[in-house]
């Protein structure tokens, strides 16, 4: 329709803070050809997300673009659009997928209805929208689209939600799709299949993609041109030769070797494994008031494995495969439908009250979002000392002293001890959670995605720290992640979970 015009033209885009006058974007200029895939990389704070918001006309009111800034979508001057004119552009010709899919979906509305609503908002009929939604769900590898459409956002895994949003964004065959870290939370296998599906859709519809990510590997595999941003400027513009779509991951670490020797020793001594899981089944039932039935979702389906003393066992699997349910079942936070879990020779299901609490000393947890798992009004040292106090290991000032020593051991600065959790960064909170879990000197540490929220540099730091602590304390670790490279770095054995069932174990 727009002939030879580029799909997107950005000319001298400068964005300033109205109050402080700080320049967030500094004379950004680039053009994107129709159907091109352009990657935008850069560290956090480089201005990637501000650029995305500026393109979408969604800049927060504290920020403003200068008069010289011009933005063109085909022949439409975005910089001159009135708010009501934006409505015909945004969500139809120009769409965006954000990093947090949960924030972008209405929790009280079935996902199918939300996609259909997005279709009808731009003039499609209900039937057409539904047809396209089902088609897109299927093409984005969402299982059982018709059933999925009737579910609510919280019933989907993070990866599924992200694909629902992608379907919504692609519904009208947009001219430009901006994906801001849209696949960062997905596991590698799923990320590739989603990006493959997106590529195919994009080619068909002639959509230009702006892929914003801090993951260089993903961007260079998917894009034909990469813009590098730093300090609000474009500092690099390189075209990329087409490459294989599955980047190789190489890992080398001495931790697995050490761990497996410890494990061999344990075997030699004829010890019982620290953890034995047999035929574990976890179902979630949901009663329905409308239909006279209960819906049962099987999260874990007959999983068996053991972890030896001093061994690091990894569990990987795509989003929604039941990894967290396994962790929660072991920790007695979710009811086990069938099967047994033994900590050494103790059947965990048999424990009640005091005995259950005492067992928790030996079995510690670093939950998926460790920062949120720290009670916000308590000081960090009190949070770490709590484990010592409730298990009678140390009290009062002695407990606090030990807590501060632990905080130092996990590499936190002294000021962190008296801070409250929200005064720390994500990486620091992750370390607090680690110190808190280690305080009771546990036998087994269950780590659920311990590095998923961190950037690559912090990720390596935390994994190295875990490895060092594991060696120093002869800890057994059950390491759950969708990130194979993270797991392979530490684990001597890796289990694969695929929709509640176990895939073949792999040795790194």
């Amino acid at each position: 329709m727009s002939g030879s015009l580029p799909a997107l033209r950005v000319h001298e885009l400068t964005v300033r803070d109205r109050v402080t006058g700080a320049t967030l974007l500094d004379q950004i200029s680039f053009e994107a050809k129709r159907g091109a895939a352009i990657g935008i990389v850069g560290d956090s704070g480089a201005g990637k997300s501000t650029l995305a918001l500026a393109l979408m006309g969604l800049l927060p009111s504290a920020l403003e673009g200068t008069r010289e800034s011009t933005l063109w979508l085909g022949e439409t001057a975005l910089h001159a659009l009135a708010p009501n004119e934006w409505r015909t552009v945004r969500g139809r010709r120009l769409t965006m997928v954000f990093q947090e899919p949960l924030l972008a979906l209405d929790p009280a509305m079935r996902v199918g209805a939300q996609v259909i609503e997005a279709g009808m908002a731009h003039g499609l009929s209900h039937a057409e929208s539904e047809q396209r939604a089902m088609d897109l769900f299927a093409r984005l590898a969402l299982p059982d689209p018709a059933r999925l459409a009737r579910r609510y956002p919280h019933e989907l895994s993070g990866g599924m939600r992200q694909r629902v949003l992608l379907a919504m964004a692609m519904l009208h065959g947009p001219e430009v799709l901006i994906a801001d870290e849209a696949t960062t939370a997905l596991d590698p296998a799923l990320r590739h299949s989603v990006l493959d599906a997106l590529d195919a859709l994009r080619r068909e519809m002639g959509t230009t993609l702006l892929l914003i990510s801090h993951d260089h590997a993903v961007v260079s595999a998917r894009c034909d041109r990469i813009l590098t941003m730093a300090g609000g400027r474009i500092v690099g513009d390189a075209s990329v030769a087409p490459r294989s779509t599955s980047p190789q991951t190489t890992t080398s670490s001495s931790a697995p070797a050490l761990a497996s020797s410890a494990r061999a020793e344990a075997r030699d001594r004829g010890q019982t494994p620290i953890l034995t899981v047999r035929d574990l089944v976890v179902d979630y039932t949901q009663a329905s008031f409308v239909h006279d039935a209960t819906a049962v979702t099987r999260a874990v389906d007959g999983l068996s494995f053991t972890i030896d003393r001093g061994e690091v066992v990894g569990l990987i699997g795509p989003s929604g495969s039941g990894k967290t349910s396994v962790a929660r079942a072991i920790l007695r936070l979710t009811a086990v439908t069938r099967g047994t879990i033994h900590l050494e020779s103790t059947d965990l299901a048999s424990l009640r009250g005091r005995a259950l609490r005492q067992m928790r000393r030996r079995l510690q947890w670093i939950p998926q979002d460790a920062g949120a798992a720290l009670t916000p009004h308590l000081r960090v040292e009190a949070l770490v000392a709590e484990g010592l106090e409730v298990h009678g290991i140390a009290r009062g000032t002695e407990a606090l002293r030990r807590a501060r020593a632990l905080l130092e051991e996990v590499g936190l600065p002294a000021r962190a001890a008296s801070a409250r959790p929200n005064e720390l960064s994500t990486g620091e909170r992750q370390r607090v959670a680690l110190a808190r879990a280690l305080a009771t000197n546990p036998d087994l540490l269950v780590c659920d995605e311990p590095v998923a929220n961190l950037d690559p540099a912090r990720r390596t730091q935390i994994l190295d720290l875990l490895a060092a602590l594991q060696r120093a304390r002869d800890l057994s670790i059950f390491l759950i992640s969708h990130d194979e490279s993270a797991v392979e770095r530490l684990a001597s054995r890796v289990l694969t979970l695929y929709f509640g069932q176990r895939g073949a174990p792999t040795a790194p």
Partner: protein
Amino acid sequence: MNGAPRSRELGARLGAAFLALVGLAALAAPWLTAHAPTTQLDPVALAWQPPSAAHWLGTDSYSRDVWSRLLFGARATMGIALLAVTVSLTLGTLVGALAALAPRWIDTLLMRATDALLAIPRLLLLLLVVAGAGTLEVAPLALLLGATGWMTTARVVRQESSRLLATPHLEGARALGVPSGRLLTRHLLPSLLPTLAVAATAAFAAAVPLESGLSYLGLGVRTPLPSWGNLLADAESQPLAHWWVIVFPTLAIAGTVLAANALASALERRWRR
């Protein structure tokens, strides 16, 4: 989004200011009044005096100073309401939090008992007790009001506690092995404070008219001690000819209830974000 919330914010501030003013006036009553609330100045010459410089709010049928009775009455009414709220909030929080933390059967038992008590109209319950025990002193009356008012708080606390128990930080504390008592005092209660503040303000707004109602019926604070309900009861014989004896206590009751409700909804909005 600037217009409406700001005016609501103003309502909340006015409400808080009004409550503070009434509280201060009640505390400082002896210094703000020229006559004792029960003194009959001159039953013949000074009965039914309209508001004047000498008697700001006039006098009643016994020639008592209405301004003085209103201020000293605030002591009784506000004091009873505050004590009642303390009792109902403590009971309600205990029952609600226990129900949320305890095993299923205790939860069911407590909440069904709460429902059963909620099903009996509160005024009827109060009348039954007062009818059985005769009129009460101030403290027992407050305790009685509290003991019949905790059920709503228990429901709200039970609901909010169950929600909080599923949040990551409480689950994290549970997985660490924190026992229930400590879980309640260290992790749960501080997170419940916003809910409790709203519940307390709402309970206060309910307790003030209840006290007044009981006193008006002659079942509350014993005459000649002043309370806002008693002032209304005294005014009942000739409300139209002597408007001042009924208008001022009515304004005080209505203003206090409105102020407390405005404050409650403002607190709720602030913390629900």
